[in-house]
């Protein structure tokens, strides 16, 4: 699995530096696990040294992976970076004895995550499945339908599309409290926020996909005497698919943000946004971080799911060949 150039001396040096740096930092963490007072100047200097060594090593190691084609192997430097950041944070927070109520150490967050996973999973179900997913599906389908209509009727294109562009510069957070007041604090209000948020990028993107068709292809359709329906079925919709998937991918992020922000303005006692709001208010930051980790994992998984479907459906497209 490892690239052949690993055997070069500079790469070995990189790994060695990285290992020494990690070892220094980990040794400190282990030594300070039960200490309650801040570390001495010498210890802090040691930490700086360890961090620098690891960073230097990381730079050299990353160089080796710069041109790896395999995405999994190519991910190694990124994984090492994350590991380094986590270990550095743990060591520094322990060295300065930052109160865990202010910035919890990564290890503490992990143990909290395991301890409260049932609550967070219930929150995630409410936020992701009921609010984000339902709103996402409604907003995206309405967006595609609107784009179909807009691309068919020039009047709608001129009258509606400029508004869609304008809407993209509106801060959606301001919409949230109004919708929550209008539709109550249960999940439908948040689903509505999500639907509105994903709707406009969907319309704009799908419209571009439907209309940015090569004139040659249009001429070909015409010479085949293709009806309007056939033109959409065989030319415009396939052409729009990559654009639609772009909007779908963008929408996953927007949907999570919309649902979480919506919950800031009132929720029925459940949901990731609600949990974050409540716990941040009483300095329960280990739970806040845990909720953020759950939200991130869901967000990344959702995005990759859409990307996977995209590859299955639009494998013929230029960008994958």
């Amino acid at each position, binding site marked *: 699995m490892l690239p052949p150039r690993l055997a070069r001396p500079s790469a070995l040096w990189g790994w060695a530096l990285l290992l020494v740096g990690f070892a220094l930092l980990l040794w400190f963490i282990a030594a300070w696990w039960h200490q309650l007072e801040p570390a001495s100047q010498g210890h802090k200097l040691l930490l700086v040294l360890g961090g620098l060594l690891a960073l230097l090593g*990381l*730079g050299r190691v*990353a160089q080796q*992976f*710069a*041109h790896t084609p395999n995405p999994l192997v190519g*991910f190694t*430097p*990124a994984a*090492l*970076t994350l590991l380094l950041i986590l270990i550095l944070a743990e060591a520094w927070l322990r060295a300065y004895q930052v109160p865990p109520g*202010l910035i919890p150490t990564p290890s503490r967050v992990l143990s909290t995550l395991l301890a409260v996973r049932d609550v967070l999973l219930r929150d995630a179900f409410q936020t992701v499945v009921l609010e984000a997913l339902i709103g996402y599906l409604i907003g995206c389908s309405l967006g595609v339908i609107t784009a179909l209509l807009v691309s068919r009727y020039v*009047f*709608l294109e*001129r*009258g*509606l*599309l*400029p*508004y869609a562009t304008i809407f*993209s*510069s*509106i*801060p959606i*957070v*301001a*919409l949230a*409290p*109004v919708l*929550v*007041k*209008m539709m109550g604090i249960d999940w439908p209000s948040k689903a509505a926020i999500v639907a509105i948020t994903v709707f406009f990028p969907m319309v704009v993107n799908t419209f571009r996909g439907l*209309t*940015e*068709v090569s*004139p040659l292809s249009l001429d070909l359709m015409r010479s085949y005497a293709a009806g309007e329906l056939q033109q959409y079925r065989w030319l415009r919709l396939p052409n729009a698919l990559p654009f639609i998937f772009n909007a779908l991918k963008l929408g*996953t*992020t927007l949907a*999570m*943000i919309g649902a*979480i*922000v919506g919950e*800031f*303005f*009132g929720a029925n006692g459940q949901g990731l*946004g609600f949990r*974050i*709001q409540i716990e*941040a*208010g009483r*300095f329960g*930051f280990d739970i*806040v971080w845990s*909720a*953020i980790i759950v*939200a*991130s994992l869901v*967000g*990344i998984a*959702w995005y990759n799911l859409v990307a996977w479907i995209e590859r299955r459906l639009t494998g013929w497209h230029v960008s994958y060949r």
Partner: protein
Amino acid sequence: MLRLSPNLVPMLVVALVVLVLYWPLMYLANIPAAQRALDTGAVLPCKTALECATQLRSPVLPSPQQLWQGFGNLMFPLNSQSAIPLNAAVTALETLVGLLLAAMLGFFFAIGMVASRAFERSLLPWIVASQTVPIIAIAPMLVVVLGQYGVQGWLPKAIIAAYIAFFPITIGVAKGLKSPDPLSLDLMKTYNASSWQTYLKLRFPASVPYLFTAFKVAMTAALIGAIVAEISTISFQGIGKMLAENSRASDVVAMWVIMLSSAALGILLVALVNWVEHLATPWRRVPQREGGGR
């Protein structure tokens, strides 16, 4: 610029249709609430549900005259602490400072990514992942933590705005710096240009169009960040503070007015970027395309 756009008439017609449809919709939404209010036997200035629908204290949809009055109440006096203009200005300031910080951060990451492939390989996955993460969720915590270390007032909000806005700028600038075609890069090489000169004379100018596109996206993101930061902390000024206040007080009409004003603020800020782009890139003022690919 005074040439009338062909979109104008259809846009006005659509706006008119929406306005005309709003009235029956408003009655439809409010009459049940009004009926309930009447049924409780409360002393109301109106007799029938139809009359009351436009005068509810917390309507489902506010009537146009309520909105109009709400605007009057919240806009004046212009320099009042509880009026929109001053608060909007504070939020706009936070957003702009945030955008500036985001631009610096974005340039740093973008140059790093273009200059070193190792840097890109180690960081890009996390920069991208940070976008599939609802970053907004970090805002409430970040404000409290920054406040603990003495960063207070409008600065933490600007920092959060920057944190949310730096991604589109990073990606946009990186794309722009990579955009010169290989021929031009070869030409620079034949001129024996140093990499610093290549950046200054070729890569930076080439990235300007991408930069402004990124700024437009980042501006909205920064505004959202600033508002969320204001909502989730103790703040004394700003649109977000007004939103949170009126949301707690259940003042529906005021919330509508604030929503519409912040929409206007967002449009205004993006228009500002457009204007700066127009000033800064005179060579791109030629009308770009007509009619699209229809």
